[in-house]
């Protein structure tokens, strides 16, 4: 099992969700986050006070998938989230030791 964490542009969330559904992903967790990478922030001006806002709003999307599905899911996210401009985001893949479905007690791939 792998945990796939994707940082994407907020307005791409619906496209990515549709693509993941097509790829057979049955559940995702979404968080509104802020961060910075290569994409620059912006300046905000309030009367005399000027602030550089480095942190750009992003969506963090997490889903756990069986090892065999990892490449398909990554492709789905890449294809649906890409605009070819700086700031499209990143995908991180991490190993998952254990998964439990709380309602039934199923474990491992059965719980995904």
């Amino acid at each position, binding site marked *: 099992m792998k945990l796939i964490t994707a940082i994407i542009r907020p307005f791409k969330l619906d496209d990515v969700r549709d693509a993941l559904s097509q790829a057979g992903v049955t559940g995702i967790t979404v968080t509104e986050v802020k961060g910075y990478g290569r994409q620059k922030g912006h300046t905000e*001006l*309030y*009367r*005399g*006070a000027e*602030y550089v*806002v480095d942190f750009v709003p992003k969506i963090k999307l997490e889903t756990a998938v069986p090892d065999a599905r990892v490449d398909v899911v990554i492709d789905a996210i890449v294809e649906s989230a890409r605009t070819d401009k700086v700031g499209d985001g990143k995908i991180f893949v991490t190993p998952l030791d254990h998964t439990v479905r709380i309602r039934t007690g199923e474990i491992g791939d059965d719980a995904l």
Partner: protein
Amino acid sequence: MRMKLPLRAAFAVLCLLPALAFAADAPAPVPNKGDTAWMLTSTALVLLMSVPALALFYGGLVRSKNMLSVLMQVFVVFSLISVLWCVYGYSLAFTEGNAFFGNITSRLFLTGLGDPFKGEWSLGATFSKATPIYEIVFVGFQATFAAITCCLILGSIVERIKFSAVLIFMVIWFTFSYLPIAHMVWFWPGPDAYTDASKVDALNASAGYIWRMGALDFAGGTVVHINAGVAGLIGAFLLGKRLGYGREVIRPHSLTMTMIGASLLWFGWFGFNAGSALEANASASLAFLNTYLATACAVLSWTFAEWIIKGKPSMLGAASGAVAGLVAITPAAGNVGIPGAFVIGLAAGVICLWGVTGLKRLLKADDSLDVFGVHAVGGITGALLTGIFNAPSLGGPGSVQDWVTVTSGYPGIAAQLLIQAKAVGITVVWTAVVATIAFKIADLVVGLRVTDEQEREGLDINSHGESAYDY
């Protein structure tokens, strides 16, 4: 038709009905129902300017962790000053005393306003002869002025001051700055007292110090805005900067609320300015339209100046421009004609933009919500331009020079401008001294600032034990 636009001044107690001291055979004048209705309406409009308008305008500009502290400070200071006004404030400001204070015993606890059981009411003067209004209406109207003036100061000291220090400061500053300045600028014996040329000197001598000079302040450029704006700047200096000021991002948490607040201020300000005519008449109508027009002009001038200089026209800029225009037209409202409203509005937007940018950088104080940059700078702009655009040659109404015959005139631009400048100067120095002492006393008694930890976490939780938003 000659427009009757007398000096904006105060109110005089004529006497208790039915023993009015007019000629025995003439029927005693009674308050006009239209005037009464308008003044009651205006009073409620001015109340709206503090709660919720000013509270929302200021509240939107602070960080969300301090939202309730701002709302609470405005709400409670408004109430505190309203009560003090009825205990001794009105008596000290608007009864005959000396050049600086009224007589505290004349209307202590508002005694002497009339007998509800007998239906006998004390009457006060307006700016027209034989046109009294109920004194009790005037008490309420002026109460809302005193209260909002004190609330304005809060914008300079928010996000770090102790609530107890706010209350101590306000009691002292209200008593020793607001009341005497109001008395100096607005107290006079009223037009009906001027029956004979031989009485003029004695009557003038019983008026407030600044009124005697012939200063024009229709609705409170000196009394309200310069008074509060300078006190706020003193507070910002004595309190020190907010933690992280100039290094961390300290941005408004809801410009939506700031826009709502500014709009409600504009609405309520019709009561403030047009109500200051004390009658529902042509003077009130002129003040109303000037208030409308100058504010719109200032929105445009601030917005376009900001667009040109800073690159983008901002909502905060437009809302600030509205307040700047409202402030600047306040002393002018019924004292200038339409040309004056155009110029004062356009000038206020640009000058106050400088007040919150270039001037603010020079002053190096964390006047957090720019009370000085908008209210003092806008108030001074308006007070001085009032002296110029009061000129009949510039479309202004002039002012009554002889209250016996009610004859209007104008002493000349240089002469009137000098009078206005003196009135501004006296107000600036007076409020600066009183504010310094009042903040020092509050500091000695309870300390001015919350602890650094409390400031970091926010005043809502630490001073008031609650949070503005549940998210």
